[in-house]
């Protein structure tokens, strides 16, 4: 699948992670929640991991994934 094809799935998956930032999800869990196959989810998860949107945690069985908040948030003066 190319990026254009998986974008809707990416969005759905992102919404799920963003809505539950503290929860961890296995690939099977995501597949059930999103009504998708593991095969279709794998490239989405791989891309999210690469971009640092989610982190992988070692679970007792399957690997688990959790949302990562954006890494930097700094405040600065706007005035010239």
């Amino acid at each position, binding site marked *: 699948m190319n*990026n*254009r*094809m998986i*974008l*809707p799935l*990416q*969005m*759905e998956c*992102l*919404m799920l992670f*963003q809505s539950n930032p503290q929860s961890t999800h296995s690939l099977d869990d995501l597949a059930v929640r999103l009504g998708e196959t593991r095969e279709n989810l794998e490239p989405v998860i791989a*891309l*999210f991991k690469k*971009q*640092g*949107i989610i982190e992988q945690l070692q679970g007792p069985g399957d690997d688990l994934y959790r949302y990562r908040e*954006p*890494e*930097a*948030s*700094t*405040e*600065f*003066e*706007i*005035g*010239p």
Partner: protein
Amino acid sequence: MKGRGTMISSIELIEKVQKTFATQYGLTFFLTDSKGEVITSAEDDLILCKRLLGKEEELLCEIRSILMHNESLSKALTYEIQSGLFIMASPVPTDESPSYYLWAGVLVEGDKDSKQLLDESDPDRERPTPILAEANKDEWLGLIEKVAQIASLCLRHEEVTPVTEIFTDEWRSHIQTTKDPVIELFSQVIAAGGDIEFLGLAEQTGEDIYTITKIKGEEEGALQGARFLAGEGFLGRTALTGERLYWEEISGDRRSRLFSSLDKQPMFLFTDLLEIHDDTHSVLFGGSFTKGRVTDSTKNTAQTIATLVESSLTIKGLRRENSQQLSRLTSLIDIGSLMASTPDPRRTILILLDISINLVEGAFSSIVIKDRENDTGRLITRGNYKGDINEYVKSIMERTAHLSRFPAGETNEPQIEVMPNGREVIECPLSYGREMMGILSVAVPGAGNTGMEENLAFLQTLSIIGSVSLQLAERSDNGIQEQKAEALHLAVSEFDGEAYRRSKESAELAAVITGRLESSSEIAKSVVLACQLSYYSPSFVHKMFPDSEAASIMETGNAILNPEDSSDTAVGGWGTAGYIYALCLVYAIKQSTEDAARLEKMDSEVFEIFSSLVRTTHVTESEFDLSDVSESGEAKAVSGAVKKMKNLSPREREVLILISEGKTNQEIAELLYISTHTVKNHVTKIFHKLGVSDRANAISKVYRTIHSH
């Protein structure tokens, strides 16, 4: 469908080809000879076709004229036969000069006359009439050339090859249904029993890798999914060179090792490279296990199959593209609905950052957002910037005049910029009307990023929805916080009327004082909230307003008011706000600042300012209340009292008058054109001569002098 082996004439076959493609593309096809005599009828259910045929003689005159003046018509061309109505013509290829021509009608895009023509001719049209534009002209011409090639094959050979039978209603229906038309075509060709015993298609699945995705014939299962590299074996050769090749007597040839897993080995093979709509390639192949030689008829069949498969895959690609586009837009609408229905700034920022970085498959996205109330900005990033991010923020600030204008000047459209680290970035302004709220930036991965135009349009839509959502969130958040604070404040009046009065008065005073002190709006709001909710404990206030600093201000203020309860001698980070809170509360209870002056942790300077401001405030208020003491009257009284203090020098008297008016050392320095250092010297001498230790007592002494006289 005609039965297998039934002979049908070439003309009938061409008519079926015409009809198949006419239905698929909405075109009107017909064949003429070189003199413009119609060879194949163009009967079809297309309205445009009917319209053309309704003026058949007129049309044929035009066609004859074209042919007369284009004797050497050797390639496909377009010709405008009426305003806005174009016809395409292609010679039917033959070994000698062309004796047949294929014609097809289309409508030009964006022309008012042509649209009007279309509306008049086809008011209830269900099928879209094809549009001719500069961008798709070559594709249309390529199509008519292909159909002309098929017509040529039908005309050239009296022998009806099995593949020609495939131009039937059934084949047409296969193209239009969800069944795989390529597999259906392969099945029908093999079932027809010609020389071709197997057919397959290998699709490009990597830069140089091809995978067999469609295969029909004996032992098809063994080849499904087999892979080869460009340049490897017979199939790889065509993948590399793009040549249509026929390989004869190849039994035992090592180049056919792709087939080595089969029980039977091919005796001949043909291979052809097909170009697909999305710029990928596929290798079409077929052959026989029993015959080692390729007849001309089989070559023609192979050529026809290639044309059909290429057309079919192109149609499939176009359909998929439309469906993907629709799906993306649907997702965008879903996201828009989500952001608009539950406006939450945090969530909106996350969506903008994460969706945009995914869309372009980039490594970095960021949002610089303006806090309009505090004149500060906030930077939130996703991914790795690779460099000093502050340099980039600085560049945004310079280009947008500190987030006060769009990077592109008048327009808020997204722009492609180069960041200080040398990478390209798409910058989408987040705005509300003409007002800038911030910038969403998405780094673009290296060169060759496809679909940039599409991504720009998508990101623009996303940023517009995000901007509206942020605006809604801001309004809704402010409204909810204010309502909640008001409700909690009002609740106090139900069980403690005096506490309600005190908190109300202290909050009003805090609003005035913070305004006079030019405190930031965030601090002002927090101090007012702290005063309103002073009846409650700081921990409860924190629970109810976790994003507000009101609870911290209350804690600081309580430590100032009740030093005995606080083991910590420091006032904490909310000093000034805490002093204001404490002073407002004390003043609301006692209606005087005297008690506050005695607080050991009270900051004398803040207290002085507060006292003078309270006084000024009350004077200002009293003016509206038509009080008997006017500002000028009070000023005169102060001036008169100070003049009576003979131990002070004239300059010290001037300074004392200004101190009594609540002026700071800096303000006094500016008013008297002297340095603050000199002012401090004067102030020290005044305190010494009056026997007081601070400004409040100095002012108090002045007022006592007024009242004693």
